[in-house]
């Protein structure tokens, strides 16, 4: 069987000749950082982003709950307006931690209990009357959390006096107050479960799971945040209310519909939180650490033709998103009615960012996207 050796030699030679033709234009860019440092990235995420961001939110949430208690015990226009301020502050702060939609937050489905909107008014009212409605079921998701409180303190009557009256002389005043308490208790319980996990064992589990397989931290994290960006930022805040995804604009489906004037700041906060997360910016330090950006750079992920780093391309797209966000007015519900094109424009630019994150970034990281689109559910 000598011919087989001859064949092998011929094949080897073909390969060597072919190979020697163009092997000189190897990448010359020196990768920044050490690609092996997924652990450094995970540490930065846990210690400088997730845990301090949770701590900041905890303060705002506790404050909101305190103001809620004050209001319940003494419903007046003054305590109501203080409650509203604390609620809005907590809601804005929530935008910075909603993104951690993986690990403990995914385990308890934190988002489902904190921020499913539009609020379902008839379910809220039914829950108030029943007094012991199950808050753990799907039907109750849109009857609790920030959106439900939005309705209860901003939208349940026309004037502030009328809202206060509901809690003082209203037929179901006691049941109403009891429901507010249930809602704040629920938010507290759900959030603290997640917060405690991060402050406890999960932090080490997260940091030490340095692989890229389905259940390793990098994969879990990337899946979580990209999913969040796609579903909760792009679709939730813009795609669905603007009608970009169904052709039917739904101005009442914007976030914080009853408060009217904080929709834009909520969206901007969420967007900025995502950008900072991508760049590894410490929540208290403001300093950029190991992140998806540095990891992509270390892997030398770049546009094959222009040699522009992928991290830069993604950040540029974020800048475009920002510019489209900036021109919106504060009342997004109003924007849907009068300036729909501007809302759709934000959606479109976010959609481009989603593609880069979901396809270009995850592919470069060799991370598998384990979830699918669930828009419009």
């Amino acid at each position: 069987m000598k011919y087989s050796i001859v064949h092998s030699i011929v094949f080897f030679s073909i390969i060597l000749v072919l190979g020697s033709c163009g092997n000189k234009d190897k990448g010359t860019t020196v990768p920044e950082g050490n690609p092996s440092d997924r652990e450094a990235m995970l540490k930065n995420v846990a210690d400088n982003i997730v845990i301090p961001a949770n701590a900041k939110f905890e303060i705002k949430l506790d404050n909101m709950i305190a103001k809620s208690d004050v209001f319940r015990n003494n419903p007046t226009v003054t305590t109501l307006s203080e409650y509203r301020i604390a609620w809005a502050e907590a809601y804005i702060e929530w935008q910075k931690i909603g993104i951690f939609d993986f690990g403990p937050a995914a385990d308890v489905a934190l988002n489902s209990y904190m921020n499913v909107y539009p609020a379902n008014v008839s379910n809220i009212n039914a829950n108030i009357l029943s007094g012991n409605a199950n808050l753990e079921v799907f039907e109750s998701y849109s009857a609790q959390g920030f959106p439900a409180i939005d309705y209860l303190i901003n939208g349940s009557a026309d004037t502030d006096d009328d809202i206060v009256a509901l809690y003082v002389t209203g037929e179901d005043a006691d049941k109403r107050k009891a429901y507010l308490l249930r809602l704040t208790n629920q938010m507290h319980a759900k959030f603290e479960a997640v917060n405690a996990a991060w402050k406890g064992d999960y932090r080490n589990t997260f940091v030490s799971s340095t692989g890229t397989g389905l259940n390793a931290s990098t994969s879990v994290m990337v899946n979580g945040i990209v999913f969040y960006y796609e579903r909760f930022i792009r679709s939730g805040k813009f795609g669905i209310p603007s009608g970009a995804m169904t052709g039917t604009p739904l101005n009442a489906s914007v976030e914080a519909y009853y408060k009217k004037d904080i929709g834009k700041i909520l969206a901007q906060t969420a967007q900025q939180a995502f950008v900072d997360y991508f760049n590894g910016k410490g929540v208290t330090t403001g300093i950029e650490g190991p992140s998806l950006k540095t990891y992509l750079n270390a892997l030398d992920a770049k546009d094959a033709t222009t040699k522009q780093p992928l991290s830069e391309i993604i950040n540029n797209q974020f800048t475009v998103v920002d510019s489209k966000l900036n021109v919106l007015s504060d009342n997004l519900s109003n924007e849907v009615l009068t300036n729909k094109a501007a809302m759709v424009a934000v959606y479109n630019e976010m959609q481009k960012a989603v593609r880069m994150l979901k396809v270009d970034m995850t592919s470069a990281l060799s991370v598998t996207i384990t979830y699918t689109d669930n828009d419009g559910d």
Partner: protein
Amino acid sequence: MMNVKSYFLKSTPVAPLVVFRIGLGIMLFVSIIRFWANGWIEDLYIRPDYFFPYYGFEFVRPLGAYTYGLFAICGLSALFVALGFYYRLSILTLFLSFTYIELIDKTTYLNHYYFVSMICFLMIFLPAQVYFSIDAYRNRKIEATHIPLWCIDALKLFVLFLYVFAGLAKINPDWLLQAMPLKIWLPAHNDMPVIGFLFNYTWVAYAFSWFGCLYDLSIAFLLWNKQTRPVAYVLVIAFHVLTSLLFPIGIFPYVMIVTALIFFSPEFHQKVIESLQRLFFFSNEKMLYAKADYVYSSYGQHFVKGIFFAFFVVQLLLPLRFLCYPGSLFWTEQGYRFSWRVMLMEKAGYAQFTVRDETGKFIVVNNNEFLTVLQEKMMATQPDMMLQYAHILAEYYARHGFHNPQVYADTYVTLNGRLGKMLIDPTVDLAKEEESFASKNWILLYNE
């Protein structure tokens, strides 16, 4: 020069074929158990609402809960093949049941499942039961020690096809000059003990790419040659164990490690059989030692040779059919399947479908309502699956308030680290397009 006629008259000990029969049967039996134990029967063949049949095999329908029965039949026939129990019936059943399973949904297409199907097909016609089998034990008249040489060479030739085509496919600029996609895949495993740190270096990706290419092109020849065989087999083990550590490719590495044994000498396989005999306390005297040839009937021999000839012609042409289509094979995937392009590209995609009708009504489809995670992932990079999906959508929305729904795809696909690009012409109503072997003019070609 080998005289063709005299070549076909040569006989050889049956032992290699027998050991191969046992190995194949056991591996498939284990593979079926593994599939079952992982819950994949449920996940892949029962849970999905929709399936993606192969063109021309649309009659292959999922069986619902009966799928378990199909797997049971498949597993049992694999075991029977290993034992050589009603061999002909068992191998035929194995081929049909295994192939049926694979044909249900192209989402799960893998080269090695196709390889197994084809090997089972060849084995239907080979006399693998004539020695060290329950059949031969029960009916000593069929017992034989020797079979025609071409019976074993056919298997070797098929394995050679697989490796050489896999190697030829690696002779492309991405693989050899860019070390793609290994440059992407390897760093993802840099936390692996002992060797993980190496994957941070670009030169390692190049080394792996070049070695992989040379390995595929040469390994079958090195195995065929007696002098190089021991070294080659060590390479086979090293190569496939490494790939099994790095990539989620299931039992494929072990299938190849066992399959490569077919190249070993009859004496080697005879020893394997003898140790199996000792292991299971068979009495040696019952085994035949005098040379006895298995002879095909004259009609049977012509029939099998004809089938094998056609088989190899097809096997030669199938991997090359991509030449009939315009554009880059990896991008369009026209002619991609059944061509031994194994672990060759990093491709990911995002496909959003918009369904419209004449009234101006439209909806951006939530893929999650129709497809499983795996189905969506595979669909998002493969044009023929997108087309099938578009038809699923058109049919669904026609029943749900859309008149003559039109389906448009907004796609974004990345290949081997290039920035994502549109794969499908977004202005084409896919609901009106039909599958065929003709080139799909709605696939956008990749212009670099």
